[in-house]
């Protein structure tokens, strides 16, 4: 890391540093204490952005405060860069040293921009040339959610199932490892995470009947260190002596086999295409597992372990420590792959090491990250398919009338298949103690149908059409107080929010909308302070970094797409309510609001000349 970066340390910065350190000490006496990020997982900000989640605690919080509630009105474009790929840009740009790295959707080009030069010219381009056919097995647009940087290398995943290490300075390929087989429907869209010299990668393809896994590659050589499947016998899942789940229902031998109809686990999904967090103190990684396949729940009676849950694993061996199944026998394609934010927060007066997760099913889960105990689960969105979580057993109480049926349209199920909130990550500001959750307000009609497994084709078994939920707005940004377990404020958006949020020490929250607006809100009140219309809808993850000139920059990729934007990128026909698994019906007017794009926008305050 560039040591020159750490040199400027403002007063506010110091305060921010002091907070997390101070909070645990006063846990007992200060009752309404604030939540703070796990200290070991959120080191002091160096102004860089070396991993998409900013840090292992996944706070997506920048301690830079040059752009703040007072100055944000003057924010303007510093430079732009066209990626040349006009599919959904879900990636977070990375900034390490003087270079910004951005990865595009398929064909997964990796660009390095030289930030030291005016206009940030291209330093190098790396083209991994993934197989074109992989586009056919990418369920929801062929996106890529970002790359990881460690030890002078950029680690990237390609749609056709490869992980590639690229020399950061030169753009030269160091190694590449083929991990997935597109003929089985396996792709990789997630952003890798580097922990202790290992690149953690999971597969996508829960809609294709793949068998989900998470693997650790040696960062130096690309060799597989361990690989943990999320279905099947314990030996495959890396469940061993260390495994100590909190709840009895997670205990038992070979649950990954016995909770499925015979052989169904072989095509049972449970992929790892979302976010991974890491707590260096407990030395555990946390990752979610996606939906079981097929969507039609009647074809897979049982709990369908280990899909739809959260694993804590040892990063060195991959051995599982605990597991909590958020949605046993998932009914609605509720992948449990959302971001896992490691916070320490007071629960009933005691500070607990927790992992906080705004889940697809509409609840903010707070789990003890050491044990997997559910400390709270509170709805942050409109829900009618479940009534709540029993904190004693960890069971989610489902509403029978909303359970999908074969040959029957079950109407008005909220939330939808993409959930109250999909992959697009929240951010947490220790200054406000609030979690900024970008989410949706959609409901759906669902009819299960028999799914036929044909390798390389989707394995779904559901006809879905989505529509706006109560109130008519389709998106919402909620500021959630994990201590009070309540919403502090929220802002409604017309279109579903499919971008991540960024919060900064300037008490700002940044996010983008699918029409293309990039907005900054006051982190304490939700008041909109600034907005800018980009060329296409925004579904990416904004970041903030300190440029070589010492100034604060905010960057985001604009380019609509993803599941939500499929209607635009695929030019789908909205007359069919089930297009894009029903999402098109909810955003049928998006084509009138935006077009495809693929441009990096970087904003800064006007330089004081």
């Amino acid at each position, binding site marked *: 890391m560039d040591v020159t970066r750490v040199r400027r340390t403002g007063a506010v910065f110091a305060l921010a540093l002091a907070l997390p350190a101070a909070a645990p000490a006063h846990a007992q006496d200060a009752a309404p204490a604030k939540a703070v990020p796990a200290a070991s997982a959120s080191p002091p900000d160096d102004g860089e952005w070396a991993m998409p989640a900013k840090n292992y605690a996944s706070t997506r919080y920048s301690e830079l405060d040059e752009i703040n509630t007072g100055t944000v009105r003057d924010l303007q474009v510093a430079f732009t860069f066209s990626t040349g790929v006009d599919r959904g840009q879900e990636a977070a740009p990375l900034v390490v040293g003087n270079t910004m790295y951005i990865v595009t959707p398929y064909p997964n080009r990796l660009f390095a921009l030289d930030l030291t030069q005016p206009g940030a010219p291209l330093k190098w381009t790396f083209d991994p040339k993934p197989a074109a056919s992989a586009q056919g097995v990418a369920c929801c647009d062929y996106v890529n959610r970002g790359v990881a940087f460690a030890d002078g290398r950029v680690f990237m995943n390609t749609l056709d199932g490869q992980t590639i290490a690229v020399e950061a300075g030169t753009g030269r390929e160091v190694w590449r490892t083929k991990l997935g087989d597109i003929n089985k429907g396996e792709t990789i869209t997630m952003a890798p995470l580097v922990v202790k010299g290992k690149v953690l990668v999971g597969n996508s393809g829960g809609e294709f009947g793949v068998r989900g896994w998470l693997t650790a590659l040696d960062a130096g050589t690309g060799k597989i260190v361990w690989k943990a499947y999320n279905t099947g016998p314990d030996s495959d899942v890396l469940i061993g002596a260390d495994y100590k789940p909190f709840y009895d229902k997670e205990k038992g031998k070979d649950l990954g086999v016995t909770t499925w109809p015979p052989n169904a686990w072989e095509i049972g999904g449970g992929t790892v295409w979302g976010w991974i967090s890491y707590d260096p103190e407990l030395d555990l990684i946390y990752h979610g597992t996606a939906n079981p396949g097929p969507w039609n729940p009647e074809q897979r009676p049982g709990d369908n372990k280990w899909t739809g849950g959260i694993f804590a694993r040892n990063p060195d061996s991959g051995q599982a420590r605990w597991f909590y199944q958020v949605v046993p026998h998932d009914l609605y394609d509720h992948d449990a792959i959302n971001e896992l934010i490691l916070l320490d927060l007071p629960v009933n007066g005691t500070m607990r090491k927790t992992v906080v997760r705004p889940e697809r099913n509409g609840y903010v889960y707070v789990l003890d990250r050491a044990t997997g105990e559910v400390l709270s689960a509170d709805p942050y969105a409109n829900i009618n398919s479940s009534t709540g979580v029993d904190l004693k057993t960890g069971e989610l109480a489902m509403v029978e009338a909303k359970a999908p049926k074969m040959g029957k349209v079950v109407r008005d199920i909220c939330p939808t298949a993409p959930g109250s909130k999909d992959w697009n990550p929240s951010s947490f500001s220790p200054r406000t103690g609030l979690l900024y959750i970008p989410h949706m307000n959609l409901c759906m009609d669902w009819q299960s149908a028999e799914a036929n497994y044909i390798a390389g*084709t989707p394995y779904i078994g559901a*006809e879905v059409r989505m529509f706006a939920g109560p109130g008519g707005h389709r998106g919402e940004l909620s500021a959630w107080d994990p201590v009070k377990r309540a919403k502090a404020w929220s802002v409604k958006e017309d279109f579903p929010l499919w971008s991540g949020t960024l919060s900064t020490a300037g008490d700002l929250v940044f996010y983008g909308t699918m029409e293309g607006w990039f907005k900054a809100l006051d982190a304490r009140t939700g008041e909109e302070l600034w907005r800018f219309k980009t060329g296409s809808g925004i579904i990416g993850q904004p970041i903030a970094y300190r440029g070589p000139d010492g100034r604060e920059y905010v960057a985001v990729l604009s380019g609509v797409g993803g599941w939500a934007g499929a209607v635009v990128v*695929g030019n*789908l026909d909205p007359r069919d309510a089930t297009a894009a698994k029903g999402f098109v019906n909810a955003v049928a007017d998006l084509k009138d609001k935006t077009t495809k794009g693929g441009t990096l926008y970087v904003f800064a305050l006007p330089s004081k000349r």
Partner: protein
Amino acid sequence: MSSPCRRSASLAVLAVLALAACDREEREPRGAPVGESGPGAIAQGTLYAGEPSPPDPRRQEYEGNAYHLAQGKQLYVWFNCGTCHANGGGDIGPPLMDDSWIYGDSLENIFATIVQGRPNGMPSFRNKIPETQIWEIAAYVRSMSGQTPTAASPGRNDSLNAKPAEQRTPKAEPKQSTPGGPQVEGRQ
């Protein structure tokens, strides 16, 4: 009524009706392949050296036949066409109910696309689906954008009503878009 002219006229009308009805209503589960199925037989573009060859008249046996279209619709679901192309609106694959065709809109083109697959994600179903069934699926695909006779096109299914049935889909005048890479309309 006994005028021979009138009788022959009514016979002619009846014969036309009969032909149309026979074509439409025949239930021949075996089907017969239309023309050559090899890639050589099918032109993908619309530009020909010399005169273009006329379309195979046996197409009608599939496109005008209600049973084959209905079978095609069923197979479309069974063989997971619908999981990529939805009920015509598209998903991973391009929509099939609109007017743009990347790899040609003729029955033979669609047949070839199914058999050969296409480079940007369309899998090849060669040897996986018997030829007659591919013709049925291809004919059904054409019915999705209203290219087949309304009287033969399928009605709604007994399932979630995603869109008006094929028999009520207005005919979309096919437009050929260029086949090509992912950048071009992003079609497979």
